[in-house]
């Protein structure tokens, strides 16, 4: 297929993270996949071996796809051989995203994010008592996560 040439004078990208991509040039297939457990804690206590994607159905449930069962004839006429952009500035590219200068064929990106927030007490609880070590560390085990979510 005849493709146009992308002419970009300058590009500045500040940050790329979490299975994202900055591609300069043509490509055929790009398939970034990203899974994340986004845990926010009132007390910043984090263990490195925590968390299992298998515990949460959001990481395994199928994503519905639009069926492409209606074939059609497509004709493209490129009157100019170039796409011209003088300057680009992108602050952040994150979570299975793509910044692409040039032509591609297929991009199939997927991002799955599960948010979990852990607070030490209710917002309307007595706020005068200081947080003790017993408030932070529990002895009993956590109930299994609700799979109905």
């Amino acid at each position: 297929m005849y493709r146009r040439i992308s002419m970009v004078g300058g590009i500045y990208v500040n940050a790329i993270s979490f299975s994202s991509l900055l591609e300069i040039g043509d490509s055929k297939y790009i398939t970034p996949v990203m899974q994340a457990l986004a845990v926010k804690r009132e007390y910043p206590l984090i263990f490195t071996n925590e968390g299992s994607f298998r515990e949460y159905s959001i990481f395994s449930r199928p994503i519905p796809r639009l069926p492409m069962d209606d074939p059609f004839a497509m004709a493209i006429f490129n009157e100019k051989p170039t796409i011209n952009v003088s300057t680009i500035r992108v602050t952040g590219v994150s979570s299975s995203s793509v910044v692409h200068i040039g032509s591609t064929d297929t991009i199939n990106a997927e991002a799955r994010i599960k948010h979990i927030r852990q607070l030490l007490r209710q917002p309307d609880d007595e706020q005068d008592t200081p947080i003790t070590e017993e408030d932070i560390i529990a002895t009993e085990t956590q109930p299994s996560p609700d799979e109905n979510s």
Partner: protein
Amino acid sequence: MNFTVVNREINVGHIDIVGVSSSSVFLVGDTRCIMLSSTFDTPPESLIIGPFVPLAAEVG
């Protein structure tokens, strides 16, 4: 069905983007097929109030 596309001249000055996030694409060029999917789960059960308990670790 017949689908005809005529790409005329395109000249863009400056593009300023704050963020491209959660399975998104910023493309300067041509493409044939793009499929982007993003799932984002924050149910009420994901708010845990009480003493800190580590999340279940990966088994095996």
